[in-house]
């Protein structure tokens, strides 16, 4: 086991499963790059039920609303409590989360998952709005196919996905000069137009005005949901703002083509390269990455016209990413994942038992402050160590580590887990404190509380 192998499995991966550091050690960079030579894997539900596509989910939502309406109006004096309609949103959401967690705990392509999680956070959709039903499909359909492709393709997939169109209200946005505005009296909604410029592409200092926000929103009018297609997307010409539209000094043609051309320009704008490079460096290299690391990623993004495989490769090949001391506090989902990988999940559980176990693990990361697909705003989860080192959140991690320790069989060997999972990253101080534990369970709880598992 080499130090570089351990760093590869932790800084670029999700924490090492038994044997993983050995595999990584032969050629750590090649081990990482081989994981991202194709789109990310698709998660599979633990209960065997299919994970539905966006179009199917739109239909399901319609059925759900009808059922709910009927159950309410069906209440009479004689029958005050009609049969409760099963909440399909929650059911689908929990099924998606379980599948996503199980894949993270077991994947042999952890860098691919890290990229999925990074881009999912960059293009945040959150279950806080009406989008809960679609957030899992969003990651499967808009993010996973593109982690080794281009930023432009991913951006289009994001802008056309029902989850984003619903989360940032664009499906309701109507061009003020359109036919639909005349009929309905409804109009423009700036939400997606603004966040597309501010968060997804240029960045807040990327050079745009309030007039550009309105122009972008107009370019996106008519981009909405359509249940009869698998991707759930439809363009509604009657809602689209008529005429050519000027964004950042450039005039775009009327209709569908205008929005497409504008998004394409944004994907390749130098400000987008700068914005994305900085976030990428912060994620993989450190909270305050060296200027050279950021500019190298920025150059790579520009030179390759936003090739995301090349971007990841540049980060992997950056010497600044390979220093032995940990760079970042793991966010809760990564922390729970690392603990489950170190302890070789699924711990003997299968079927419904495994499903229940996954739900508890989702709740655990929620308690620590991070519920998947539930970031507090379109900006996504914070990506700096301080945000995840709060007193209460740390205490919750330690409480949970104790729970995990308590549930491990007495025959488990915590020191062996530590040596396999951390290799040369295991500190002698941690080993000596673990040696004072009164049980294997307590030793494991101490391992999972240690700085080398909290950080990466």
């Amino acid at each position, binding site marked *: 086991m080499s130090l570089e192998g351990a760093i590869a499995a932790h800084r670029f991966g999700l924490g090492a499963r038994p044997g993983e550091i050995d595999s990584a050690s032969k050629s750590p960079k090649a081990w990482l790059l081989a994981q991202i030579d194709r789109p990310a894997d698709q998660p599979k539900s633990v209960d065997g039920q299919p994970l539905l596509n966006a179009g199917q989910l739109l239909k399901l939502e319609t059925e759900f609303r009808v059922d709910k309406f009927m159950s309410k109006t069906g209440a009479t004096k004689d029958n005050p409590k009609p049969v409760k309609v099963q909440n399909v949103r929650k059911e689908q959401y929990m099924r998606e989360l379980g599948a996503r967690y199980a894949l993270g705990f077991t994947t042999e392509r952890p860098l691919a998952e890290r990229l999925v999680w990074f881009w999912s956070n960059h293009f945040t959709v959150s279950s806080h709005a009406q989008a809960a039903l679609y957030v899992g499909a969003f990651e499967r359909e808009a993010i996973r196919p593109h982690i080794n492709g281009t930023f432009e393709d991913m951006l289009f997939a994001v802008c056309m996905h029902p989850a984003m169109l619903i989360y940032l209200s664009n499906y309701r946005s109507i061009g003020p000069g359109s036919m639909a505005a005349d009929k309905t009296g409804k109009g423009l909604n700036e939400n997606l137009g603004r966040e597309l410029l501010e968060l997804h592409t240029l960045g*807040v200092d990327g050079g745009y005005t309030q007039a550009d926000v309105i122009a972008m929103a107009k370019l996106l009018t008519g981009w909405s949901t359509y249940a009869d297609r698998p991707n759930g997307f439809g363009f509604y010409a009657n809602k689209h703002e008529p005429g050519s539209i000027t964004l950042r000094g450039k005039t775009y043609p009327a209709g569908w083509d205008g929005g497409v051309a504008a998004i394409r320009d944004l994907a390749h704008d130098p400000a987008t390269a700068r914005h994305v490079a900085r976030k990428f460096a912060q994620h993989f290299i450190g909270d305050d990455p060296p200027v050279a690391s950021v500019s190298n990623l920025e150059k790579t993004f520009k030179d390759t016209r936003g090739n995301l495989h090349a971007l990841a490769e540049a980060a992997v090949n950056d010497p600044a990413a390979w220093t032995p001391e940990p760079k970042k506090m793991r966010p809760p989902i990564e922390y729970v994942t690392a603990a489950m990988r170190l302890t070789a999940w699924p711990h003997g559980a299968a079927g419904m038992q495994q499903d229940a176990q996954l739900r508890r693990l989702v709740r655990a990361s929620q308690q620590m402050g991070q519920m998947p697909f539930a970031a507090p705003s379109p900006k996504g989860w914070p990506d700096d160590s301080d945000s995840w080192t709060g007193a209460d*959140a740390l205490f919750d991690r*330690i409480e949970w580590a104790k729970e995990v320790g308590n549930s491990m069989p007495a025959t488990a060997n915590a020191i062996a887990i530590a040596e396999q999972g951390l290799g040369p990253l295991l500190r002698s*101080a941690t080993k000596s404190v673990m040696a004072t534990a009164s049980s294997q369970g307590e030793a494991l709880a101490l391992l999972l*509380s240690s700085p080398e598992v909290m950080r990466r």
Partner: protein
Amino acid sequence: MNTRRSLLKTMTAAGALAVWDAPIRYAFAGVPTDRRLVVVVLRGALDGLAAVPPHGDKGYAAMRGQLALDKTGPAGLHDLDGFFGLNPGLTNVKAMYDAREVLIFHNICSPYQNRSHFDCQNVLESGGAKPHIVNDGWLNRALTPMGLATGTGAVAVDQAPPLLLSGPVRTTSWMPAVMPEPDTAFIAKVKQLYAGDPALSAALTGAVDLQAQVKAGDDDPYAMNANHKAAYGNLVPLFAGAGKLLADPNGPRVAVLEAGGWDTHVQEGASTGNLARRLQALDQALDAMKTALGPAWSKTVVVMATEFGRTVKPNGSGGTDHGTGTAAYVLGGAVAGGHVRAEWVGLNPAVLKDGRDQPARTDLRALFKGVLAEHMGVSQAALGTTVFPDSGNVTPLKGLVRA
């Protein structure tokens, strides 16, 4: 699973509390102040025209359209002074206003106005004139001139302190929890693990202190299901918990809370709509905090502010888009209240910012500075330099606190 409540009972019966090895650090020697300050960040841009409707303005009904609140009837707005009113959801705040415990400022905004949630929250919390030029929070920098730099004088009711309370002075964070807790011997071992890691050590010590304080003599530890999303859900346990922490004579003097759910791009609603319901949740939480504070309410000032306001007219989806000016709120037993203060210019599009947003006529920093000066005794010199850098030209508002 053990709840905190049942665990607490067992531990108290066994006398186990005494073995918490970290001393409770709130035992200030000669506490510098008995005044309490609460700052609530309303994340997401609360529509000030919905919370504090200027129903007497001649342009109100026409400009607000479907968002105009009913003036009368069972869900009618609460009139304050014949011109301004309160949203029907703010029933408890109305009662506080009638008791002269509420001051409202209208047409107020932070000094940086670009309609970005994230930039404007950064300015609101950092106290800089522009985003990202100051790296920590104004409330943390104010703790030293308040005399609260030693011990842990300030708590964030959150999983980690937000930017507002981040900075050089040690603070801590607290949330109602649901999991059982590890024993003290185990915590001592974890402390050994963190011997070389100052950030993790400090976080752990802070958590242990506060858990001990909340438990001491407590028969209702708010053992309910809360999580990071809490600021978007039930606010009552968070606000009641803050009140309880502040009520303790040896407890913290400053608390920070967050409440979200204000980014009403879609179906904002009027008298009984989505925003009215969310305001009602905030109203109930404020009442729960007042109750938990008990006699300490008379020494308390609560400041609530949001990063910017929203468009005056509804957007195309029955909501409002990002705007500029809005309202800010000062509540508490120590407040010289019973007024709405505003440099009001009407709602005519000619006077609106860019013809669309409520204008900003008062700098939020003037309000924060006034509260810090009058209530917490922070000097003008500190306010204009360390607390709000380069803000010498922003005069603190006066007459906020009862003499």
